[in-house]
């Protein structure tokens, strides 16, 4: 089973985000970059499927050269090959443009399954996966927490949690899955894995290499424009629920949740 995992590099969720002087972007100087956590679930799932069915796992990333480190990390986890789409003209591309660039790489690859994260933890758009499936004309299985491939490797059965229930979906392959938290527990890049990854192939491709027109990418081609970024409001002081007994406290809490927080 050949699997492609699309991987985005995002700021570590522990990083303190500062908004830039233009009020439209973040300051990237001190940021620690990591693999988007949802994409990491995709890498892990792909590796588990490979362990069962054989085949190759290819990791495709897009962005500046620093993204190489994230791709190498996925190779150190056990993926076989990496491709980085990197081109100055890509700077500032929106989700749709990203999906187009990824689709251009994918049309030359052999794949049974594609994994993307259900969303990037940076922009929180959640568009690239579904858009990519659409561009490739294959089924899109969003927000998946369990993947079972048929013994013959020709179809998958996947689970999506829906309001406390589970929706079980079957699909023919090839298909695209967007990974949701709960899918698995990603492995660590082991030391032997890191050494092996050094020798694994990692190809770089520009828009030109992919036969794409630079005018359709980057800031200028955005369909969505960011007008402004504002920091989240300061967290308000907490509230201690008063009461003599646990019962009283629970009743008071329920009342506050209903009347003040209005959560139900």
């Amino acid at each position: 089973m050949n699997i492609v995992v699309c991987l985005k590099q995002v700021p570590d969720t522990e990083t303190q985000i500062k908004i830039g002087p233009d009020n439209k972007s973040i300051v990237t100087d001190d940021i620690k970059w990591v693999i988007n956590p949802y994409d990491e679930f995709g890498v892990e799932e792909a590796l588990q499927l490979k362990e069962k069915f054989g085949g190759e796992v290819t990791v495709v990333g897009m962005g500046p050269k620093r993204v190489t480190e994230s791709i190498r990390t996925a190779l150190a986890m056990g993926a076989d090959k990496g491709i980085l789409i990197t081109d100055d003209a890509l700077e500032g591309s929106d989700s749709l443009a990203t999906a187009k660039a990824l689709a251009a790489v994918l049309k030359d690859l052999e794949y049974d399954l594609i994994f993307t994260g259900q969303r990037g933890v940076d922009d929180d758009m959640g568009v690239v996966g579904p858009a990519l499936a659409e561009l490739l004309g294959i089924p899109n299985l969003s927000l998946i927490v369990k993947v079972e491939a048929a013994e013959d490797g020709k179809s998958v059965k996947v689970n999506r949690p829906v309001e406390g229930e589970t929706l079980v979906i079957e699909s023919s392959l090839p298909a695209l899955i967007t990974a949701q938290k709960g899918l698995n527990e990603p492995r660590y890049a082991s030391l032997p894995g890191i050494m092996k990854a050094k020798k694994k192939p990692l190809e770089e491709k520009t828009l030109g290499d992919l036969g794409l027109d630079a005018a359709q990418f980057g800031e200028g081609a955005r369909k969505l424009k960011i007008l402004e970024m504002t920091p989240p409001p300061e967290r308000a002081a907490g509230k201690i629920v008063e009461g003599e007994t646990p019962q009283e406290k629970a009743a008071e809490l329920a009342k506050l949740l209903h009347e003040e927080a209005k959560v139900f």
Partner: protein
Amino acid sequence: MDFSLSMEQEILRNSVRDFAEKEIRPVARELDEKEEFSHETMQKMAELGLFGMFVSEKYGGQGMDYVSYIIATEEIARVDGSHAATVAAANSLGVGPLYYFGNEEQKVKYLPKLCSGEALWGFGLTEPNAGSDAGNSKTTGVLEKDQWVVNGSKIFITNASTRITTGVTALCRTGTREDGRPELSCILIEMGTPGFEAREMHGKLMWRASNTSELYFDDCRVPQENLLGPRGNGFHQMMQTLDGGRLSIGAMGLGGAQGCFDLSLQYSREREQFGKPISNFQVNAFKLADMALEIECARLILYKACWLRDNEKPFSKEAAMAKLHCSEVMYRCANHAVQLHGGYGLMKEYDVERFYRDQKLLEIGEGTSEVQRIVISRLIGAL
């Protein structure tokens, strides 16, 4: 001058940091409290590849450079001293002498299991009456026909009495040199050899989840081929091992200091008194600034010493300096860390309490701070 780490080293740091936070942080406090060496975390560290880091792939090692080994040790120490001790002692003291001084047969026999982390090996230098003065070892090895007969005892030996320990390297007096001084040699003694007993020591202030043992040799007989390297080279081998070992103690100081700093910065920003975070009081901010500065300097000297080693340049002086400096930097950082945590810093619920205790070993083990100053004084030509 290029200060950047390689991409592999960056990935290694991220991976080990992530591992330490998720697998060690949640259990470190309880293991410390129970004074328990955990075979479970040992196995997880083994799976990650933390053993035999600088050993060539030929013997099952990871074939990494020394800087990488030090980064990995540093990242474990950033979360817990005991686990870092297990890793550092296994690599520098357990694997080190076998890898650098063993013959092919010994390497093939012992290294693969030590590098996969299925086994541990002790480094038996210190004796009850030979600590800083390690050359004064009283343990004897007498060659009778084709066997060494070993008698004596060792103390404070790390990793020497776990369930998976397979043996120890013991420094023994094997005769008298022409100049009248003792001839010292290293002898390999496997676990289970009659007359050899390793007893776990209890009641430690620090490194409570690391295994420390007393070794007893009572007419313990091992084959003649268990000699490590040439006869009479034992002391030299041990001292050379400690040169490398000092870098890993340095890594523990640096990592521990970083751990203290990270916890303190976070705590100081969150803890409010007089209506504002305590980090907003300049006296506290300056403590954090001093910690950050000292850590940066400690990292520079430690990495430089590793770089010298990786580039096959003399590094004894820098190793002693790095060991001394990093352990003293952690001393000051742990002190600031507890101070910044106030009363909570004295409670076991807060990791800085453990860091405060764990730090002390670093100024004593593998050559005390006084001994490091002697080494440096000699190497700069002052003594």
